């Protein structure tokens, strides 16, 4: 068995960075996040915190991404693709909730008959080094959402915190290769995998998607949505919210098309060309977010789109708590139809 002694973390990251773009969790004023290694001044490697405030989805789905540029050249138009260069990328220290979210993004962008080229270009060369979570935080409930905090998936390597070192376990062919390339930095040592700590937050999602299918018009949504102010914090901090908009910028005879995150909390999100908004009220927008997480995604892909990371619970200015909401929904007694 291999371990990475903590004193050698920097050496290992430097080695990886020789051939790849490496992302690590950092503390930064304005919120912890995954950022490139070597870190810039102000960023501080944060492998020991529970997780990052901003999720690693930015690595595969940046908030703003140029798609192509165009320019009028006389009677013709010149179009240039501006997609990312394909190069190997390594993201280090991804927790199980966030890797489950990447699995969900993979479903959306790579399956069901259409592959999103921009996503694929970032995702395919990505090596994920997952970190087993042993001590759930006060807002963590991944286990309730069917995630094993000790088994991030998909990953290429899993690391286990052993105190002075990280237990190092390759989980894929690419992970094996990566392990070999770090051969002189990793040490041989037997270790026992740590076990998971106890979750403070528990919630039962049994039967919830089926139940929600009959609750679209339930008056509870209006009550639950009342404190919501329809900002985009929950959707932008969420590791699995993936909605984006495609927009364009023109300057004279040239310009570019880009895509950027969008949020179902915004009225503009569903605004139609004719001026009609099918989700015109705040409770309809609120309902959509929860139904997408807990019902629609389950119906289409067979898994929940909420992975229990708890970020939205921490950051909601009005204290909206998805666990409390699931509990309220579960308490509702529906007439048998």
């Amino acid at each position, binding site marked *: 068995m291999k371990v990475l002694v903590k004193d050698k973390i920097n050496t290992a990251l430097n080695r990886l960075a020789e051939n790849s773009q490496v992302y690590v969790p950092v503390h930064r004023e304005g919120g912890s996040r995954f950022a490139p290694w070597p870190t810039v001044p102000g960023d501080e490697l944060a492998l020991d915190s529970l997780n990052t405030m901003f999720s690693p989805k930015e690595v595969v789905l940046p908030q703003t991404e140029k798609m192509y540029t165009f320019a009028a050249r006389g009677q013709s138009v010149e179009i240039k693709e501006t997609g990312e260069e394909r190069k190997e990328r390594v993201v280090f220290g991804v927790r199980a909730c966030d890797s489950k979210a990447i699995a969900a993004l993979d479903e959306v962008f790579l399956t069901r008959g259409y592959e999103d080229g921009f996503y694929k270009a970032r995702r395919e060369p990505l090596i994920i080094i997952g970190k087993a979570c042993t001590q759930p935080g006060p807002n963590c409930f991944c286990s309730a959402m069917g995630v094993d905090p000790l088994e991030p998936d998909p990953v290429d390597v899993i690391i286990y915190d052993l105190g002075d070192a990280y237990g190092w376990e390759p989980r894929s062919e690419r992970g094996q290769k990566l392990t070999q390339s770090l051969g002189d930095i990793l040490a041989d040592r037997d270790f026992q995998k740590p076990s998971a700590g106890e979750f403070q937050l528990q919630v039962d999602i049994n039967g919830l998607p089926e139940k929600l299918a009959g609750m679209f018009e339930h008056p509870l949504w209006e009550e639950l949505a009342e404190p919501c102010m329809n900002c985009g*914090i929950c959707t932008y901090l969420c590791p699995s919210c993936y909605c984006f908009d495609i927009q364009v910028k023109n300057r004279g005879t040239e310009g570019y098309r880009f895509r950027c995150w969008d949020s179902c909390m915004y009225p503009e999100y569903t605004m139609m060309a004719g001026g009609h908004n099918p989700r015109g009220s705040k409770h309809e927008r609120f309902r959509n977010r929860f139904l997408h997480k807990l019902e629609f995604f389950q119906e289409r892909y067979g898994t929940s789109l909420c992975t229990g990371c708890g970020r939205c619970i921490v*950051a909601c200015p009005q204290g909206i708590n998805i666990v409390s909401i699931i509990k309220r929904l579960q308490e509702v007694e529906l007439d048998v139809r």
Partner: protein
Amino acid sequence: MKELTDRVRQTARKLLDGQQVDLVLGWEKGPEPFRSQPVFIREPEEAEQLVFDEFCIHNLSTFLLDYRDGQEKIGIFVKGCDSRGVVRLIEDNQFLRERLYIIGIGCPGMKDPLAAARAASGLNGTEENEGLAAKCRECMYPNPVLYDELIGDEQPPHLEGERFAQVKKLEGMSAEERWQFFSDMFSRCIRCYACRNVCVACNCRRCIFDETRPQWVGRETNLMDNIGYHVIRAMHVAGRCVECGECERVCPVGIPLMLLNRKLIKDVNELFGPYEASLKLEEEASPPLSVYRPDDPDNFL
């Protein structure tokens, strides 16, 4: 505060029992000790849910906008800053005074449940719980300025030191330093619009940032589009900001929005003042930037 909670519950029950109001806006306890959060109650027995404690920091007046097209009579609990928010809405013709029963509470200063949640979350390293919330440490008007009924004791202002100290520091910077400062701040913005949505002065039915034809501000998350957003936002609330500090409190990336708002408060004061937004409800009152006077200063044009 236990006593205040009792008074809050009694008052809400009385209002709902007597059908004086259809709805009461107050605070309830969430799952954690530091979680107080907005609650909207319609039945007298629900009054038992209400609390008033050191975490009731949310400015509830903004929520009135959700009911501006309705007929309901609404009971609302307000601290000093929240009451200025109510004045803002009435002055902006967004709400009728007659539809409100306002219960004022002298505010001893609040702690921020969001800051507490972040500190406890394990997501931001060694972030410390800050005690009295930043916005409350700047507070000059803790006592409600408009109410039908007042509960609790009058409170002294919490501001220590000079109100515009930070603004003056900013004004003292060179243009390059200021550009660097704001570039650092605004490049962080994730465009979640929480600062706009929580703002009681942001009460336009159609917000410029939601417009698509034309699209006044680009949707890219980059410095230029972010600056476009923040400068327009700040200018739109100039002379109308009630200094409740909610924008800065809810910002998930810690942009010091009140610094910008306070700079504009200072400018409005110097150019058109003395002026304090929404300190009392006056017939036909309008904020300085909504009024034209032939003797308005124009030396900046």
